[in-house]
């Protein structure tokens, strides 16, 4: 059906990047947004979609999606209205070879589902010992560099990595977690872990790493993004750095916006995350940071098979399937926080697009025609069989959420529709 001209009629268009929130017609042509409101001259729609009662927003942009199986996960992405995903380099093998990056880009392009933006390894094998070929990786398609969850322990090497990335203007993304303080930890070092006898990850594991990263970023001038913040103290450091004018950004996972250490309940391995779910007051600080726009929201989509979760809590693999829950959980957070829909959608569209430096997350005329069309009030129950992702584990299993994607358009092509 290629990029035929598409006319989406009567949708409530919400585009946080252009402060648009109005019920208008949307015209797509040649893979781009051709016009809003009135049809451009000579526009002949190959297809007209009646979107009365639905919301059309830019396709969601996700800062961290682990792919596992590429096709099912990209199918899950478009089913969740996600049209651009950034993939961390801790694939097997890690993304430290231009050839691997090219293959990933080619495979995803062939599928023609969500757009895939690889994040290259900052060091070879993510071992934190030798710099990766960042320039070659960037030419192969990497848009930033990170260590995924493998920290660089050697701070001199971290400094060198930032200097080298800054040379070419590449962004560096770090997961702030001091590996010594986090050693053996499987849950927030607090009341619940103490009661359940689980090894704790203290908040200091995050703040120490943030402080180090900020100091080195300041020294090198690198553009720094800190991923998956989990604590109030961590957010406070980012706020202070931003206030001081540092070019730093951060994100929080959608799980950490909704859950706390209490959700571990009786050792529910679906509530095992890395970084761990922290206290309720930490969660509140994260919600505030997302509300204020200090942090973007990411899915932290990590499909884990059943065997990886059918284990005692501490031995279970961390992470959850999330691409298909990103939109409804963001809507729920917005409703609970009394946040206007456009501001909430900014955290999963234009904000992360800006972090990634990609042309996405906007409904401006001329922007790529990546659209998420959803019914904001349609309820659906999260069940293994309703998820397209191969990962079926989420702490929200059995929950009823509202907000269901009806159609997803990537580059003017309808890639998902119910």
């Amino acid at each position, binding site marked *: 059906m290629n990029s035929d001209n598409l006319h989406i009629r009567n949708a409530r268009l919400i585009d946080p990047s252009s402060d648009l929130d109005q019920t208008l017609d949307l015209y797509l042509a040649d893979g781009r947004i051709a016009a809003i409101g009135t049809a451009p001259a000579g526009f002949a729609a190959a297809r007209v979609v009646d979107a009365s009662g639905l919301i059309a927003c830019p396709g969601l942009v996700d800062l961290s999606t682990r792919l596992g199986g590429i096709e099912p996960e990209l199918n899950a992405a478009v089913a969740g209205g996600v049209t651009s995903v950034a993939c961390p380099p801790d694939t097997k093998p890690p993304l430290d070879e231009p050839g691997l990056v090219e293959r990933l880009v080619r495979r995803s392009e062939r599928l023609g589902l969500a757009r895939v933006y690889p994040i290259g390894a900052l060091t070879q094998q993510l071992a934190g010992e030798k710099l990766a070929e960042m320039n070659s990786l960037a030419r192969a398609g990497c848009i930033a560099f990170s260590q995924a969850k493998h920290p660089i322990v050697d701070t001199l090497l971290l400094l060198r990595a930032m200097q080298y990335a800054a040379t070419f203007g590449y962004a560096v993304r770090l997961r702030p977690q001091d590996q010594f303080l986090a050693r053996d930890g499987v849950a927030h*070092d*607090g*009341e619940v*872990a*103490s*009661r*359940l*006898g*689980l090894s*704790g990850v*203290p908040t200091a594991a995050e703040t120490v790493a943030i402080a180090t990263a900020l100091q080195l970023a300041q020294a090198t001038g690198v553009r720094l993004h800190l991923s998956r913040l989990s604590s109030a103290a961590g957010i406070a450091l980012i706020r202070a750095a931003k206030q001081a004018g540092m070019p730093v950004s951060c994100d929080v996972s959608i799980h950490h916006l909704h859950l706390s250490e209490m959700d571990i*309940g*009786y*050792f529910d*391995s679906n509530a095992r995350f890395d970084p761990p779910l922290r206290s309720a007051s930490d969660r509140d600080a994260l919600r505030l940071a997302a509300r204020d726009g200090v942090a973007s929201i990411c899915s932290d989509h990590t499909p884990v098979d059943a*065997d990886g979760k*059918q*284990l*005692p*809590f*501490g*031995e*279970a693999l961390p992470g959850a399937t999330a691409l298909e829950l990103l939109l409804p959980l963001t809507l729920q957070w917005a409703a609970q926080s009394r946040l206007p829909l456009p501001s909430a959608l900014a955290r999963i569209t234009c904000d992360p697009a800006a972090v990634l430096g990609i042309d996405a997350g906007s409904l401006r005329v001329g922007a790529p025609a990546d659209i998420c069309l959803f019914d904001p009030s349609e309820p659906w129950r999260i069940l293994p069989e309703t998820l397209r992702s191969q990962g079926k584990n989420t702490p929200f299993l059995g929950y009823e959420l509202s907000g269901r994607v009806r159609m997803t358009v990537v580059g003017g092509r309808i890639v998902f529709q119910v």
Partner: protein
Amino acid sequence: MHNPQLNANGELSHLLSIEGLPRDVIVHILDTASSFLKVSARDVKKVPLLRGKSVFNVFFENSTRTRTTFEIAAKRLSADVINLDVTRSSTAKGETLLDTVDNLVAMHADMFVVRHAASGAPYLLASHLRRIGRDDVHVVNAGDGRHAHPTQGLLDMYTIRHYKKDFSNLVVAIVGDILHSRVARSDIKALTTLGAAEVRAIGPETLLPTEIKKMGVRVCHDMADGLRDCDVVIMLRLQNERMNGTLLPSAREYFHCYGLTQEKLRLARPDAIVMHPGPMNRGVEIDSDVADGPQAVILPQVTFGIAVRMAVMGILAGN
């Protein structure tokens, strides 16, 4: 939240932790245990309660001692006892747990007594049994990681009740490596549930869990302060690997600061009892003079432990 220890009728189906046990359930177990204590003193130390039932001792962590007490308890209830010493392979950790369980269920197991190095492992087992529709198979936690050792907690409560009758005026001091101790967690929860007047946790900060005060205890860093006027002293075992210099400088310094000697014990009430879950490290956490002294009730704890485990198994198997 669904309490995984209770069945649809609100009866105790598994014993996984003291946490989540209502006070009257704890008292019922202790009362039942006192009846079983008489059975153990008889000529024929056996009752036919679990005749024909199969109790599997599944120990993923070696402990001949605890396993033996469960074995004796089950045998005194006339159950058939099968011991499995499942040594954990490094590759197939948790799969082994649920695979083992599926196999044993297929062999018509009626009860599992489980010890595992990972906190929460018995919960995984109980929820698995629920998922496969075998709620009739019972799980007894014989110690999971640092989390819980509920039968030890119950036998400690039995011992305290035996010597002190009532909990409401009691000051209980728990001394040592509380961070790594499942016994301490079970004791603290049981004591607060039964309404002990004060529970003190004594040890260096490196051996105390974060936010331990939220468990309802008073933290003391000094033995003299912590032992003063207390009625019960529970000493915890200090594992050798804790003394490698990362948590404590040395066994010698630990004994000096936190080892129980007659001299320190004199600060407690004259009728204070001294307990220890065993096995003891003499000269590390407790002096031999105290361990063998008149205030020690460490051997009665062992005797009571059999009766308490009989009570737990007897009650579970009937629900």
